[in-house]
Structures are given as structure tokens and as C-alpha cells.
């Protein structure tokens, strides 16, 4: 492989990871507040459709992104609303919404299938894109990809370093303790449920407006929502690890094309399955790493202990449960 193709691969990995990062970080934010929004797969499709239809009819890509993010936020709000005010299980509502939003997207978007609509135009950053190697890989994309760089740094900073981020984590970990400190857990869950949904909506728009530009059935982003949910777990609810997971998945996805050339008997979807066994495996490790006996056993085995500690993170303690005083 020469330099050029390596650069192209890296460039496409960066671009392909962008919508997944939006979706996975959006879901991480929602889950940090203790709400699990299972509807991602449907939400992404619905917002992808919205983005395409809006920007097709108005000609404005920006308006497409804007409406898609509103749709994403709205779907997430339904989950939170059902959970807080009707006390219906978040999982049940999320699951029903997954299917409903998907079908709604296909239904409403049907007249717009296979039309040529506006796309986000590439915008190489002057000077930076001229840098050898990294210029093409990192700075010859469109503006959404650049926003994505800023976004993951900002969301990491927000959650780890700001008082608001601490309040968010506090609600997901121990809403009673948060309440005793004058924080209103329900309000926080509504806010961050919406915010997380907004980013999931942006992920959907990214698909229909540049990654897999256009609308049709299948659109090409089916299954991404589940992958984003899996990546949140894989990353242990930690923004930087989730982002690493996203790039890892994107790498697998892009390499799938090459693997297919090397092993022609394997269809490409086989490689796309790879993150799921990985997710299950990491969940088992998370469980194992918290087992007292295993901890005892690995006390003087440095390598294993290091490995266990890397995985020894846990979900927000109050994830998926309801809070009331």
C-alpha cells in the first residue's frame, strides 16, 4: 500500500466516523442523565429523511440540519416524557419508537426517493489541507466533519470539566443525592434527553446530506443506531473512549471493503457485524472485572490487572430507572 492510498483510507475513516460520533456522543449525553434512548436506529432514519426533504424543498442544507436535529430532540423527549410522567419503561417506548420512526421515515420520504438533492460541499481548510499527509486525511472534508472535531472535544470538556457536566453526571449516578443538593433530576433529564436527541438528529442529517447523500429505501444508514448504542457501552460512557470506539468501527467498516477484495467469499455485511460480538465481549469483561474473586485472583498479575482496570467502568448507576422523591 503506498502513501496515497493509506491517506485516502484514513481520510474516509475520518469522514465515515463523523455521523457515528454525533450519534454515539448524543446517546452518551442522554444516558449520562440516567435515560436510555433505545430509539436511535429509527431516529437516525427519520432525521435523515427530514434533512433530505427539507433541504430538497428549500435548497438550504443548513435548514435541513436544523429540522433534523429538532426531530431527533423531539423523539428523545417522547422517551423521557413517557418515563417521567407516565412511568412507562424507557426500553419499551424506545423500542416501539425505533420501529415506528423507521417506518414513518420510509412512508413520508417515499415521494422523495432517489431524487438529486443538495449536499454539504467539501471545504478544505486553507493551508492546513496543504500539509503533507494529515492535510488530506484531516482537513480536506466538509464543515460538518470539522464541527465534529470541535464537538467531541467540547462535549468531553463540558461533561468532565464544567459544573453543568457534573450536574448531568450527578443525576445519572444518584438522583436522590442530586435532589438533596437542590438539583431537579427530571428537569435535567428532559434537557439532556433533548440535547442528546438533537445530536442524533444531526447524525441522521449527516447521512442523507453527505455520507450517503440522498434518500431511498434502504438509505444505507440502517443499523447505525444500534451500533451507536453498542459503542456507548463499548466506550464505557466515557466520551473519549466512545470516540475511539467510533473510529475503530469506522476503520472496520472501511477495511471491510478491502477485506472483501482479499477474501471474496465473505460478503461485506459480515465485517459490519464485528462490533457486536466486541460489544458483548466488552460487557462480559466489565462484569467480570467487578467480580471480587477475579479481583483477588488478579492481584499480583500486572498485565491482567491493567486490562481489567481499563474495562472496570460502569454504567451510570441509575440508568434506565425512574426517580421520584
Amino acid at each position: 500500500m503506498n502513501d496515497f492510498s493509506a491517506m485516502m483510507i484514513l481520510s474516509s475513516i475520518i469522514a465515515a466516523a463523523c455521523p457515528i460520533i454525533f450519534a454515539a456522543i448524543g446517546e452518551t449525553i442522554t444516558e449520562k442523565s440516567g435515560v436510555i434512548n433505545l430509539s436511535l436506529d429509527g431516529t437516525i432514519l427519520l432525521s435523515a429523511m427530514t434533512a433530505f426533504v427539507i433541504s430538497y424543498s428549500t435548497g438550504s442544507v443548513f435548514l435541513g440540519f436544523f429540522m433534523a436535529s429538532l426531530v431527533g430532540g423531539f423523539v428523545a423527549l417522547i422517551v423521557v416524557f413517557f418515563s417521567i410522567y407516565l412511568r412507562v419503561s424507557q426500553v419499551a417506548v424506545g423500542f416501539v419508537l425505533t420501529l415506528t420512526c423507521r417506518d414513518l421515515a420510509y412512508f413520508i420520504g417515499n415521494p422523495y426517493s432517489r431524487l438529486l438533492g443538495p449536499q454539504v460541499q467539501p471545504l478544505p481548510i486553507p493551508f492546513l489541507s496543504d500539509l503533507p499527509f494529515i492535510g488530506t486525511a484531516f482537513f480536506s472534508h466538509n464543515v460538518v466533519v470539522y464541527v465534529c472535531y470541535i464537538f467531541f472535544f467540547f462535549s468531553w470538556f463540558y461533561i468532565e470539566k464544567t459544573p453543568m457536566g457534573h450536574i448531568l453526571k450527578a443525576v445519572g449516578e444518584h438522583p436522590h443525592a442530586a435532589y438533596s443538593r437542590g438539583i431537579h433530576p427530571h428537569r435535567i433529564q428532559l434537557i439532556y434527553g433533548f440535547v442528546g436527541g438533537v445530536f442524533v438528529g444531526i447524525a441522521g442529517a449527516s447521512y442523507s446530506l453527505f455520507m450517503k447523500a440522498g434518500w431511498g429505501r434502504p438509505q444505507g444508514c440502517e443499523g447505525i443506531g444500534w451500533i451507536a448504542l453498542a459503542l456507548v457501552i463499548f466506550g464505557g460512557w466515557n466520551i473519549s473512549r466512545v470516540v475511539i470506539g467510533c473510529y475503530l468501527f469506522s476503520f472496520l467498516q472501511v477495511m471491510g471493503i478491502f477485506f472483501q477484495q482479499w477474501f471474496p467469499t465473505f460478503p461485506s455485511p459480515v465485517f459490519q457485524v464485528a462490533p457486536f460480538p466486541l460489544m458483548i465481549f466488552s460487557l462480559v469483561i466489565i462484569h467480570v472485572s467487578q467480580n471480587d474473586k477475579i479481583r483477588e485472583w488478579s492481584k499480583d498479575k500486572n498485565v491482567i490487572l491493567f486490562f481489567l482496570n481499563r474495562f472496570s467502568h460502569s454504567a451510570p448507576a441509575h440508568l434506565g430507572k425512574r426517580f421520584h422523591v
Partner: protein
Amino acid sequence: MIEIIDIHKHYGHVKANNGISMTIKDGSIHAILGENGAGKSTLMKILSGYIHQNSGLIKINDQIVDFSSTSVAATFGIGMLYQDPMDFPQLSVIDNFMIGQAKGIFIKKRTFLNRFYHLSQSLGFSLEPDCLVKTLTVGERQQLEILRLLSLGTQVLILDEPTTGISDLQKDTLFSALTRLTRDGKSIVLVSHKLEDVETLCDTITVLRQGRVSGHMVKPFDTNKLLDLMFETRSSPPGRLVTSQGPVFFSLNQVSAKGGRVGLKNLNLKIHQHDVIGLAGLEGSGQSVFLKVSSGLLPVQSGTICLDNKNIVGKSHVYFQNSGITYLPSSRLEEGLVPGLSITQHVSLSARPKPLIVNHKKALISSRDAIDTFHIKARPDSYVETLSGGNQQRLLLSLLPLKPRLLLLENPTRGLDLSSAYFVWNHLQAFCKTDHTSILFTSSEIDEIMMVSNRILVFYDGKVVLDKKTAETTIHEIGAAIAGKSVHL
């Protein structure tokens, strides 16, 4: 100065606070004393704004205040240290310190670190700010909460059972810190069952009993009088059972276990047939861990449990059950019964051995029998969650196996009226008479223990501190042992 005037708080039919009035002076340490369920925690949650009273007033310096939330209470300088740690184990000490205090976009970590060091130095605490809270001991988590509350500008610090589960050294540190705080003019409200702690530390004591104030007292304290105020004496006992003691059949040797706040430490115990043993002690002193360990529900860390001289440690709960050891939990609806199932279905569930096909007709007949013999006010198809506490307990009794060898009962009469309680005891005593059954039970009411048991164990801090025949002890000796104090009369 804080005045509490005629506070009422009801949960359903339970009157947790039933007209409580008291005054807390500035710069003093004021203790609230009482048994489990006397209404202490409820009162303190009201005072700190966590819950709202149904009626009654709170006045601070003659000004009526209304706490709609904890943050409102905080602005009036009231802060509470809860019994269950209200912190975030996954976050670091300094982050815990900042949550709820820090505002704005950027955290001024340096400012908070300075404040943190300054405060902890002045109180003699030594906490590492970057440690994760889950690695701290209960005592250290308390220290962190106290620092946080003081940093918020707390003038009145409420502590709910602060000395349970912390080491003696930490207790000393805590007490000297509290004394120092009163010198700065702050008031401390200490909620406790522990007489010794209260007596050494406090200036004033208010004793609660069954949701009401049963008395006030100022230093110096008369221990016996306090005990009288705390523990009510009730009349007309169902009577102690007089039977000859049988041979030893069940024993625990050097048993230690984890669980609750204090666990169980090196317990040695021999149980004879016909024994009715009352387990006294504050809630969470190890009794319930002991019952769960003895019924095979909790694993032991070390030691042996012997039934007929055979070690049965490590066997499943089902094995214990089949050997005739039965456990009844105190939270009937949460742990003992299955809400959503009817009485008949419970009868079918407890049939043993279970046939593959459930015989509805037979179950219906047995549940009618149970309803008749145990005076359960319900129909066979009533769902258990619709029954009153007394009827739920009768139902649980009716589900007991025919010839139990050992009954482990957690608060068997909690929440029952007198006649129900007597009914329960009459039935239980019948087991001892006819089936050589032994009974171990916990109760927060000393009278009940004195009345029905022929042997009493007092738990304190995960250990048995008193083991005597009922005839050879007094209510004062037991009360003192419960409060962690040995009184010689």
C-alpha cells in the same frame, strides 16, 4: 434559633410525625433520640427541605420559613448529613465537593481546592481531593459531606445516625470537629439511638416516641430516665412460653459475613430446641445479616454453620428450606410476598414438593382453610398487595411449612395492631410446643422481646454484646446494651 411547631407528616395511614414541637438553640448540640420508627428521620428530612410536612410550622429567628426544596433550606443555613450517603461514588472527592456549589461554565477548581483544604484543616480531617469516593470509608464520606455542607454556609448541621459503621478514631475526630463548630456559633442536631454518644456530646436531648415528643432533657442526663422515655412499656403480654430446653441442634461457629453497614463479626451461637430467642439491637447492627446468613440467603466469609453437627455452609437456600429452616423478611411486600399474585397462587407456590400441574381446586380449598384458620380478611382471589399489613403477615404464617425446625423472623409483628401481634405469637408458640421448633426473631420493641422470648441476644456493631436468659436480665440492661453502653444497676 429554630422553632419547630406542631409538625405532622403522614404516609398513607402511617403517622410518621404526629404533632412535634421543639426548639434548637444557636451554638448548641441538640440530640434527637428514639427507637426505630419513632419519626426522627422524617422530622429531619422535613427540617432540611427534602420532604414537606403535611401541616405545622418552622420558624427561624422568629421568621416563618417554608422549605419547598433542599436548596431553599440551604439558603437559610440548614444542611443535612443523611444516613445513607448522598454522594456520587463514581466521582472524585473534589468533584463531589463542588457539585451543587459550583455554577457557571468554568469550574474554578483552584478556589474550591483552597476552600476544601482550608476547611478540612480547621476540622482536622485529612482527605485526598483526587480520590474516588467509592474508595473511601463511610466515615471519610461523612467528613466529605460535612465539609461540603459547611462550604455552602451551613449554620445548622443535621447529622442522621453519623456514628453507625465508622471506626472509634473517626468518631473521635467527628466529635471534636462538631464541638469546634459549636464554638463558632453553629448548631448541631444529632439524630441517634446511641445513648453513649449522645450523652458525651450533647447539651440538650429531645426524645421521640411513635411520632410524638416524649420528653426533653438538658445536661446532666439521667440514663435510666432517658431509657424510660425511649422505650414504652406495654401491658397485657401474650406470655412467655414455659417449656423445657431441648438439645442443641443448630450452631454458628466463628461466623463472619458482609452485608448491611456493619456486617457480622465472629459470631458464636448454639440454639436449643424449643428456644424462643429475641434479637435486640438497633436496626442494622447485624441482626438481619445474621438471619439471612442462618437461612442460607447470604454467603458467609468465614466460619461454619452446623445443623445436627453437619456443616451446611455453602448449601443453597433451597437446601436450608428443605432442612426445615425458614426465613420471613420484615418487608413483607418487597421480599416476602409477590404483589400481582393472589392468595391461592401463593398457596400453590409454597406447596412442597411442587407438582408439575398446579391443582387449582386443591389450592383454592387450602387457601380457604388458611383464610379461616388465620382470620385473613380477604378472598382467595385477592391480590396480596390489597391486604393490610396484619393480613399479609397472617398469610405468610399460613404459608409456613408444616413442621419447621427453625424459624428466622425479621420483625414479625412490625406494623401490626396488638390483637394481630398476639395472634401471631400464639400461633408461633404453638409450633414450639408441638413441633420442637425454635424461633429467632428481631424486634425493635424491647417489651415484645421481654414478653415472649426465653433468651435474649443484643447486637451492637455486628457483634453479640449480651446473651442472657430473659429471666436473668432487665429492660434497662438490654436498653443500655442496645445503645452501646453497659449500665450496672
